[in-house]
């Protein structure tokens, strides 16, 4: 009993801390791909997320409802991104606008090389990270699954590094688990697995590899039942985190019986 309650307590205090802010959920949600604001709100609530990304675009008076207000109303902290930026210059300008509009100095920095791969452009990413850190931003750097680049971004002052599992929107899962583990093992800032997640087990794997959190959008918003999938991810992230902390058994080449051989009944 004592052990069980201690375990529960340790799970409850296992908060994700980013820039001094505590989050009870290790699932960061994106908002892209949802057909309606109402549906999105329901999926976000089901996922239990406490931090959610938004993009910055031209204001349209015909747009019904405010995404920012929806997040504020649900007590979800907003993480603006620089989605759609191909250059450091555009990303810095977008981050400045987001800081003004949403009154936060947190930014998910996304500098994309081309529309075909949507992969981060390392050169522009490094340049933008340097400039934004210099201007007082807390940079969440969306990066390739490259351990060298991830460490470089951290050394430039990134608040968190966000390596991709697979290209945005592919749902291919984690293509290079070894690199993700390597990034985690050397990082002293939070590592958030971002992009490529297809289903719940991918998110659980990310946590088992040691990531501090998982960020996903389309896996939920474009699922056939987004609310149900949001809930699935909520549990997957918790399960993966617990499994990581619990310490998995080593992999073995040959079978190892779990039942003792001694004391077997003998039959004629």
């Amino acid at each position, binding site marked *: 009993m004592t052990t069980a309650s201690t375990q529960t307590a340790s799970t409850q205090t296992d908060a994700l801390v980013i820039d001094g802010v505590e989050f009870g959920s290790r699932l960061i949600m994106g908002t*892209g791909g949802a057909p309606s604001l109402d549906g*999105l709100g329901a999926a976000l609530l089901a996922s239990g997320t406490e931090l959610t990304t*938004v993009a910055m*675009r031209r204001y349209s008076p015909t747009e019904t409802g*405010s995404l920012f207000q929806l997040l504020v109303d649900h007590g979800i902290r907003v993480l603006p*991104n620089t989605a*759609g930026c191909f250059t450091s210059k555009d990303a810095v300008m977008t981050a400045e606008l987001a800081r003004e509009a949403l009154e936060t100095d947190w930014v998910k920095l996304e500098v994309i090389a081309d529309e075909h791969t949507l992969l981060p452009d390392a050169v522009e990413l490094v340049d933008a990270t340097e400039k934004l850190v210099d201007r007082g931003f807390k940079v969440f750097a969306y990066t390739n699954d490259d351990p060298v680049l991830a460490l470089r971004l951290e050394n430039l002052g990134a608040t968190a590094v966000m390596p991709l599992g697979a290209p945005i929107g592919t749902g291919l899962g984690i293509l290079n688990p070894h690199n993700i583990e390597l990034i985690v093992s050397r990082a002293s800032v939070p590592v958030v697995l971002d992009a490529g997640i297809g289903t719940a087990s991918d998110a659980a794997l990310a946590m088992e590899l040691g990531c501090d959190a998982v960020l996903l*959008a389309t896996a939920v918003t474009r699922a056939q039942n987004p609310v149900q999938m949001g809930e699935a991810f909520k549990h997957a992230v918790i399960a993966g985190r617990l499994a990581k902390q619990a310490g998995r058994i080593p992999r073995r080449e040959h079978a190892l019986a779990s039942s003792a051989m001694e004391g077997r009944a003998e039959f004629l």
Partner: protein
Amino acid sequence: MNIKLNGADHTLSDDASVTTLVSHITGRVVDSSGQAADGRKIGVAVARNSEVVPRSQWAATALAEGDELEIVTAVQGG
């Protein structure tokens, strides 16, 4: 005066400030600190000729003929 707003032509009174424009576009009353008077988040940012105009400067920033304004807000993405 004529300005460009989010890439389209727009006509405003000659004494318009950034606050006037934001109020006009969002249909909300904006106070001198750049916050919506209804107490809800207004959630927009303004760039004038590719320079961000801080919320606190909206009231004091007069617009001029030919200015290029961008007003952005949070939308679904990422």
